[in-house]
């Protein structure tokens, strides 16, 4: 046996750490989303590269007992140094209060104009604000049907882009005052804010504090001020 043989043996020895198992179903769900985005981007010829990502609808679930009750976050005026091009904020920039080394996580709407999506006029961008400047990291918009039809739209799983983590987010069209979802068997509540351009649109996100593993939150449910469950809209779980 040579030293290299020993190195090989060490590399191949069962790690001391319990590496667990991967969730193949979750992998296929996320991979399907990536595949759909690529198709849409290919169909748009790359001309609207950052404008055509979409997620649609997650099935509704029953209300749970969230441990925290996030309050609606007021939408702030657009930062004066925000991008002025394709990713320029469309309406107010929403401050989440979630910070990391990249700055504060923010969400804002952006205009979408593409021939392939005639019923989509806007999308939601997740980015960071630091020293008055905005980044445009992950954009998601409706790609199937009207973008303001009642229900969830453009639900984007937790991801990272440009080195910045972006938690699960999306928007709800309707009078939602509470939005919840399920992760690791626990129902958690999303932070949310109304879009300044159209007050019937509620932009929401699940804080990394409630979902530290950045797992996909499923079983999305929206409630009105009377606590009534609102329509989920499309009913295909995980589509988008």
């Amino acid at each position: 046996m040579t030293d290299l043989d020993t190195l090989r043996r060490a590399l191949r020895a069962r790690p001391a750490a319990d590496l667990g198992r991967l969730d193949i179903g979750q992998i296929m769900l996320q991979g399907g989303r990536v595949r759909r985005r690529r198709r849409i981007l290919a169909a748009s010829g790359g001309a609207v590269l950052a404008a055509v990502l979409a997620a649609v609808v997650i099935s509704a679930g029953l209300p749970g007992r969230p441990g925290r009750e996030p309050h609606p976050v007021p939408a702030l005026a657009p930062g004066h140094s925000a991008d002025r091009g394709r990713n320029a904020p469309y309406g107010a920039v929403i401050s989440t209060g979630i910070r990391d080394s990249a700055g504060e996580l923010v969400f804002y709407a952006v205009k979408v104009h593409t021939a392939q999506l005639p019923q989509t006029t806007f999308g939601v961008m997740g980015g960071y604000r630091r020293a008055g400047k905005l980044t445009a990291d992950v954009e998601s918009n409706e790609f199937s049907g009207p973008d303001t039809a009642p229900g969830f739209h453009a639900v984007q799983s937790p991801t990272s882009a440009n080195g910045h983590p972006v938690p699960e987010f999306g928007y709800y069209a309707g009078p939602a005052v509470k939005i919840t979802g399920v992760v690791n068997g626990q129902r958690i509540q999303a932070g949310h804010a109304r879009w300044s351009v159209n007050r019937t649109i509620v932009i929401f996100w699940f804080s990394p504090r409630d979902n530290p593993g950045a797992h996909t939150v499923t079983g999305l449910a929206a409630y009105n001020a009377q606590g009534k469950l609102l329509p989920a809209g499309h009913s295909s779980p995980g589509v988008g």
Partner: protein
Amino acid sequence: MARGDEEFAEFAHACSARLLHAAYLLTGNRHTAEDAAQTALVRTYAAWSRVRRADAFAYARQVLVNHVTDRWRLGLREYATGDVPERPGAADVAEEVTLRRWLVGALGSLTARERAVIVMRYFFDLPEVSVAHELHISVGTVKSTSSRALAKLRVQAEPPPGSSAGTDSITTIGQEQP
């Protein structure tokens, strides 16, 4: 489930443990490894129609390694330690445990590229030309990086002249050579 999905599920079940193991060697962190291996399989599934008839595992492996090294380039890595830990005496603990401990510390002394080259060469047993192709570097860079990494690990690339196979080579790993 569509036929392609069934094929992918079978593929993923078969190779996920190996990818996860490789990811752990590349990152040294269980959670980061899980994230990296999952990302590799997500992208493989997204490209499944294209790669299923080719070498799907090679595709997943390449995505994994480049994903990890990209993260390191973005500054999301744990920084390498300066020194390779000394291997405790073989009599102290079981050999496998000794090897594990040495390996964790030793890999931590390498740069991202060195670590990737070592894992691809000696975990996956890839030839230098394949490593070069998958890491988008030259064969010469693979050779020099591998040589430098082995020197840091204090592993002899070739058996010393006059040595015979079957000797207790563990004593030459993790310790200064005379």
